[in-house]
């Protein structure tokens, strides 16, 4: 009886100790939580007072009184912080002590009550239990192996892909690495050209005349003297689509009598088509009777010249021998490639830039005039900003992951005329030119600035923070307003002057790759998900929108009062460039389209995935 009583007493004692220690721990825990809450409310690490004072200090670095004030606040904050730390630490130790006492008393309590460690009785029939074990082991094993297999197949081997693509370099620009070719006498040119005759012959025979190939053939191997003098006439740039998006890069053609019907598959209204030797996403440029395109793969990069009247390949030149050009190709994505930028031609020379950073100039007869490497661009898709040319300046927008940059090269010899660093992130947009108060500005868009630069010096004239993300579309311009857009950013209209603010902005439809175009008071924009939309250029009021099955990477062009835009499926949508948005026609190319239409009187040149087409009625 006495023993039983002792047992009861011990149980009661253990129970009380456990209870008291539990309450003790609860109180300490509550205090700790209160302390935690208090610290969260008045976080000394983020004292607003100190923040404001430190900000003031940056404008008054010599203010000793201010420093002293900051120090005292800092000291106070530190005291508060470390006191709190002490409280937390002490509290934790108290909790630990309470916990040990409680665990021990609980242990005694449960031992004395003889209920400890008595598992629930589970009566299992052994054979069934074993069978269940086998079943579930197999299920679990199968799930693990299956999961691993699926995860294995779903895992993308980036390393392998990367190594298969080649080598990425982040070389700096060799400042003096310009290879300038001497002006050859006619005979030397003939010798030089002779070495490329194989390519030319092969290319020429590859041209497939569809209809009425003209008699104007140019003997590719005929020796031609290198042009030494430069000419510039802005009207020539209106009659020749000489740069990306035509005259000044604004997306408007001045040609009339443009075809509206064709079919690349059946050959309807196709004057000729040729297959080109190297892939490239650039748009052809033309000058007089010559049409130029570039292409490139890991093996070589080429510039090709065709007779635009009959599709005959006049010459095709490999871009080689450029100092600083990388031996291995930079890694580029398939949808950008090595020859995405559109070339520029000024009647004297044709200029090309590649994802290797090589810039090269040929005369119109195919003689290389100069070549230089700007440093392999640190660009994860591949360089795609097209060239712009005006007077003696070849403008290169060269915003990379390393830095924002723009250069003007002397068209005659490739020397740097100016080279400005820009406070922007990488971009894929191309420079456009506008004329303000008789001066030409280069307009660029990148994250975060849309900016205007003096063409003569490269100096920034104005900028406005408007963009974000990976900027692909170039700007549009008309009647004193610049229009810029990018996916995940916005569409803005802004006056090209210092301190400019948005005239209007919108974010309903944003373009990923296609550049907007402004014409006759209307702004047109195409999205990568297949919406073509028209706004009032002055107010931003939407006039109409059309949705197509395929998206647009190609930009809209205006010609003969109509808007032409090619979707990714190769269908050209022709719409009246007015507020009615009347559909004119939707002719098909028969292969995917990405390049812009190139206009000349009575004809359009279209570059598909595999062929170059000349369309004419």
């Amino acid at each position, binding site marked *: 009886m006495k023993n039983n009583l002792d047992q009861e007493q011990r149980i009661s004692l253990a129970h009380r100790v456990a209870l008291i*220690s539990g309450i003790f721990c609860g109180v300490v825990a509550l205090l700790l939580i209160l302390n935690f809450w208090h610290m969260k409310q008045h976080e000394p690490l983020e004292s607003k007072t100190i923040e404001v004072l430190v900000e003031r200090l940056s404008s008054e670095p010599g203010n000793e009184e201010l420093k002293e004030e900051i120090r005292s606040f*800092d000291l106070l904050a530190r005291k508060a912080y470390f006191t709190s730390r002490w409280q*937390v630490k002490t509290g934790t130790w108290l909790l630990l002590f309470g916990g040990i006492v409680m665990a021990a008393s609980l242990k005694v309590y449960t031992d004395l009550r003889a*209920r400890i460690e008595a598992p629930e009785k589970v009566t299992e029939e052994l054979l069934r239990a074993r069978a269940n074990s086998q079943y579930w082991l197999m299920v679990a094993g199968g799930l693990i192996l299956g999961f691993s297999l699926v995860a*294995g197949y779903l895992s*993308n081997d980036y*390393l392998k892909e990367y190594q298969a693509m080649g080598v990425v370099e982040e070389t700096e620009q060799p400042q003096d690495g310009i290879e300038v070719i001497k002006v050859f006498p006619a005979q030397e040119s003939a010798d030089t050209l002779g070495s490329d005759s194989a390519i030319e012959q092969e290319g020429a025979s590859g041209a497939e005349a569809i209809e009425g190939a003209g008699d104007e053939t140019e003997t590719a191997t005929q020796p031609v003297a290198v042009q030494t003098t430069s000419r510039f006439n802005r009207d020539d740039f209106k009659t020749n689509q000489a740069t990306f998006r035509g005259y000044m890069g604004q997306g408007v053609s001045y040609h009339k009598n443009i075809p509206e019907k064709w079919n690349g598959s059946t050959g309807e209204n196709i004057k000729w088509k040729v297959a080109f030797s190297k892939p490239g996403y650039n748009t052809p440029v033309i000058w007089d009777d010559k049409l130029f395109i570039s292409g490139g793969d890991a093996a070589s990069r080429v510039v090709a010249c065709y007779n635009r009247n009959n599709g005959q390949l006049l010459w095709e030149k490999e871009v080689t021998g450029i100092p600083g050009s990388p031996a291995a190709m930079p890694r580029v994505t398939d949808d950008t490639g090595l020859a995405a930028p559109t070339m520029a031609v000024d009647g004297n020379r044709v200029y090309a830039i590649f994802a290797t950073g090589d810039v090269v100039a040929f005369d119109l007869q195919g003689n290389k005039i100069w070549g230089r490497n700007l440093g392999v661009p640190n660009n994860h898709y591949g360089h795609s900003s097209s060239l712009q040319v005006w007077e003696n300046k070849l403008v290169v927008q060269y915003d990379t*992951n390393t830095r924002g940059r723009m250069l003007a090269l002397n068209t005659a010899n490739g020397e740097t005329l100016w080279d400005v660093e820009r406070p922007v992130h990488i971009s894929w947009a191309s420079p456009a030119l506008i004329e303000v108060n008789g001066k030409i500005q280069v307009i660029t868009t990148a994250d975060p600035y849309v900016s205007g630069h003096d063409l003569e010096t490269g100096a920034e004239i104005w900028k406005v923070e408007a963009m974000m993300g990976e900027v692909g579309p170039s700007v549009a311009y008309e009647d004193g307003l610049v229009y810029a857009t990018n996916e995940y950013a916005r569409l803005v209209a802004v006056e090209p002057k210092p301190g400019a603010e948005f005239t209007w902005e919108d974010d309903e439809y944003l373009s990923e790759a296609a550049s907007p175009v402004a014409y006759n008071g209307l702004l047109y924009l195409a999205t990568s998900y297949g919406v073509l939309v028209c706004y009032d250029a002055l107010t931003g009021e939407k006039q109409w929108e059309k949705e197509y099955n395929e998206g647009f990477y190609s930009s809209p062009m205006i010609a003969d009062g109509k808007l032409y835009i090619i979707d990714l499926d190769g269908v050209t949508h022709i719409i009246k460039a007015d507020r009615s948005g009347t559909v004119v026609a939707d002719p098909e190319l028969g292969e995917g389209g990405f390049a812009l239409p190139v206009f000349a009187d009575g004809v359009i040149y279209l570059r598909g995935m595999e062929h170059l087409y000349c369309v004419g009625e």
Partner: protein
Amino acid sequence: MLKKIPNLALILILFALLTGSFLQAQQRFPKPEFDTGYVQPDPTTPEPRAMALEYFDVLVLLAVLSLASWLAVKKRSRRGLLWLSVFSLIYFGFYRDGCICSIGAIQNVALSIFDPGYAISITALLFFILPLLFALFFGRTFCAAACPLGAIQDLVVINPVSIPSWIRKTLGFIPVIYLALSVLFAATGSDFIICRYDPFVGIFRMDGPFLMIFLGITFLLLGMFYARPYCRVFCPYGVLLSWMSKFSKWHLSITPSECIKCKLCKDSCPFDAIEVPVEQAYRTPEVSRKNLKRFILYIGLIPVLILLGGWIGSKSHIFLSRVHPDVYLAELMISQPELKEDEENLDIQAFLESGDTFEQLVDQAAVIREKFRKGSLVMGGFIGLALGITLMNQVVFRRREDYEPHKGDCFSCGRCMDYCPIDSQKSKGESQKLNVESLKLKVENQKSVKSKG
């Protein structure tokens, strides 16, 4: 309701510990943002533990293992084992901050085997080998009294429940996978995941990341009802100990004499590690024939599982290799090159400032991935083999007349000895020749007392 108060209080205290520890792990106060003229001292590498003290740790371990084996096998003292485990918890856990530990030493050994540039310390090697050696002769006495992780869980066993054997067997396969992964990651120099995800080291150190503390508290809470959850469901070292222990010659026995089949030991074991006598019904020719067929099937299945596991393992090497920081970083910079501009991405910024070229990083990552390809193949094969053997064991019915501890699963904690009525008779100095009938009567009385309690 009143009876539940202690349990509720225990949960509360553990929650409070969690909160307190979390608060401990807050960010340190930053340096002032203006020039104070104060020169930051160069950081110094903390002094490693003196070699003599490291050897002392080994001696302590050796002593604890010896004492635990003696207490389990010879002395048969549950109380002794309990107090020894408390000592180990204090010494190896709180005093030595849970490091060095035999469980983590697996990784040191694996790395030293596969990386010629890594020299394992003699201490780590001995911490790895000694418990295995003792397990080979005396069973898992390391788990009983020398492992701080086991000890802290053992102390919170309050009301353990028994779970069906198919769940135990299925969960019991997790440590095999964990072992395989930890060896793979250690051998490739990727990570010491056993240490990274050690749930109790944060408690031992009274500090640690939130996740670590949270895991520790969770395991302790769970351990109140499912005894030693980490040991039974995760511990990779337990796999090795289990293999060794199966061959142990002098393993702890439940009863020192004749088993009276009172089942008290089975009820006492919170780990379901007592094997029941195999009745004759399971050994009939019909059952034996069926089991034999299945046994042969599993024998034939083992090579298939090895090959399948190896093949799937090699297919898994791409995502497994991403545990390695170099592979992860290289792939991150390839797949998201724009992150190079992200100044808040410290990994990338640290790499960019290191002066190494990206090509070097990619090449290094490719070498590591190749190691993973081979390692994953072996790992998959090992998992397939383990699965096959586990399945095979399910159709083997060994002759067993008495209640016996499962040599692989038994932690040698001694609870069953403590509960064995025969053992208690011996300790009271009664005659070796026990009267079985009278004992059975005592057992019934003991059970009725328990049921009243």
